[in-house]
């Protein structure tokens, strides 16, 4: 969870600090200390529960889960067992056959994270860092509704989108802020019930979710087809080899002996607080998606991409508010903007160009100053110069003109680069005549019915004018000349 402090003490949760500099007697399990719940962790869990259609428990409590492992300094993990904070929810995912599929959520509970073990390559030791110990986690347990590895990925992505919309988790799988343990079982087609389940751990990217599950399904099917039996066990995904491997665990390892934690008093969540949190929820991705399709007339694919990230959706709506037509804003964002952002490895929040600047460029297309090809050039130049202005003054990046001191306008770049399109009919007519007289064969074939040659003539005019011709005018002139 994106809290500033740990779940039961005031130590910071920032990722990447020097080892063992973010601990205190509470989170390293010194005798006599008293854990006190972080109110925001509870609020985040409730937010998540409401956003995933769960019932919020008005009475809830923490339990101790007992096991020994060097990254768990107390010898138990504080978690929830009976009476978790949220139960009986669902999320909808895009189904492979089109439409939606509902995945049930059994429960969401709060718990504390464990520390991090580093295994020395050589030598008989492991090293332990307790900075992560006590960082608040939510465990979201789904119902056995997922049927394919692709659905599992869809489900993970959907959860990640919701969690990021809510601001309760950054969803970063590489840094471990979103993790996944998958229970996998197979059964004969048409049979009821579930087969023996195997828990697959260490799946730390969307790519690995799909790969690990596909491998595990194949392994189970093969074992059964060869007459073997499956055992309920935990397997680790080996990212290098692309296989799952059995974790040898002692037989009593699963005897967690949960019991209510006597150090933490029960939680009684009243309706009033639940309603306050519900009222503070942002517009959620499914609703935003529907609104984008309905209100902006966007194709579903565009709406899906734009609403995957809240910041992306906000950028889009600002552009529309500033005067862009929805489909044009969507096209430019999915095309040029994302391409340039990816090139610089920037998120949409860090975009050097703001929505108003895109609209500024679109207006220059509309009023005929530049054509679409030129607009792309203006866009890239503006992007690079703004990037240079905002992020980098060392002059390392390539821009054709110097970094501006204040935000750029499209007009400035058009002027400085001499990009104004040729809309002078007299001037263009000369070029058109030139092209037609140089290609008598094509002219004859066009007149004989080969109408797709129009593209060839337009291309020739563009080539001679180095992309500056007003394409609408060129089309008109060519149409007129060729019909006589």
């Amino acid at each position, binding site marked *: 969870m994106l809290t*500033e402090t740990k779940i039961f003490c005031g*130590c910071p949760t920032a990722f990447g600090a020097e080892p063992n500099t973010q601990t205190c007697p509470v989170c390293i399990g010194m005798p006599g200390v008293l854990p006190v719940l972080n109110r925001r962790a509870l609020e985040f869990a409730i937010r998540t529960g409401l956003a995933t259609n769960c019932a919020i428990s008005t009475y809830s409590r923490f339990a101790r889960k007992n096991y020994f492992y060097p990254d768990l300094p107390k010898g138990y993990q504080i978690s929830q067992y009976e009476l978790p904070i949220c139960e009986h929810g669902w999320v909808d995912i895009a189904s492979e056959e089109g439409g939606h599929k509902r995945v049930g959520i059994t429960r969401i509970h709060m718990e504390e994270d464990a520390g991090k073990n580093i295994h020395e390559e050589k030598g008989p*030791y492991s090293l*332990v860092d307790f900075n992560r110990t006590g960082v608040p986690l939510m465990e979201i347990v789904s119902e056995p509704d997922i049927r394919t590895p692709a659905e599992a990925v869809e489900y993970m992505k959907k959860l990640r989108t919701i969690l990021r919309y809510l601001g309760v988790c950054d969803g970063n799988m590489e840094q471990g802020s979103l993790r996944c343990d998958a229970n996998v079982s197979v059964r004969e087609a048409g049979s009821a019930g579930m087969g023996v389940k195997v828990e697959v751990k260490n799946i730390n990217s969307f790519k690995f979710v799909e790969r690990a599950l596909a491998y595990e399904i194949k392994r189970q099917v093969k074992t059964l087809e060869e007459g073997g039996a499956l055992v309920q066990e935990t397997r680790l995904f080996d990212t290098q080899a692309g296989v799952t491997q059995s974790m040898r665990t002692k037989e009593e390892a699963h005897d967690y002996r949960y019991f*209510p934690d*006597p150090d*933490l*008093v029960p939680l009684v969540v009243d309706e009033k607080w639940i309603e306050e949190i519900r009222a503070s929820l942002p517009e959620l991705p499914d609703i935003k998606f529907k609104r984008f399709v309905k209100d902006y007339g966007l194709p579903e694919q565009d709406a899906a991409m734009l609403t995957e990230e809240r910041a992306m959706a906000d950028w889009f709506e600002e552009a529309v508010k500033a005067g862009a037509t929805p489909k044009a804003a969507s096209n430019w964002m999915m095309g040029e903007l994302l391409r340039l952002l990816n090139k610089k490895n920037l998120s949409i929040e860090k975009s050097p160009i703001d929505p108003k600047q895109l609209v500024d460029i679109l207006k220059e297309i509309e009023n005929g100053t530049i054509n679409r090809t030129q607009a792309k050039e203006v866009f890239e130049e503006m992007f690079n110069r703004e990037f240079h202005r905002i992020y980098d003054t060392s002059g390392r990046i390539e821009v054709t003109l110097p970094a501006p001191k204040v935000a750029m306008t499209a007009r400035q770049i058009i002027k400085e680069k001499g990009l104004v399109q040729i809309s002078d009919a007299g001037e263009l007519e000369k070029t058109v005549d030139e092209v037609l007289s140089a290609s008598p064969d094509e002219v004859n074939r066009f007149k004989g019915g080969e109408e797709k040659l129009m593209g060839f003539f337009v291309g020739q005019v563009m080539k001679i004018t180095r992309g500056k011709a007003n394409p609408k005018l060129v089309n008109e002139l060519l149409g007129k000349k060729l019909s006589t």
Partner: protein
Amino acid sequence: MKIDDKLVEHIARLARLSLTGDERTAMVSDLSNILGYIEKLDELDTRDVEPTSHVVGITNVMRDDRPRPSISADEALLNAPDRADNFYRVPKIIE
């Protein structure tokens, strides 16, 4: 509940304790006595009694999400049996 050698051995293993034969025998008898004493409670009719998980009648003790200073790595590691740089050093964990 019947306490025997096997159960005592299991509980000892979960608690990471190793017992001698004599200690185990003593535990079987001690634990049996304790449980026998507690089993007296089974005579009570508790059908309408809510299970108690906490004896002080308070709920919702929480703190704000405001950072407080942590202790230094050196301080944290004072009680560590072994360290390497700023890490706790433990016997190799085999998974």
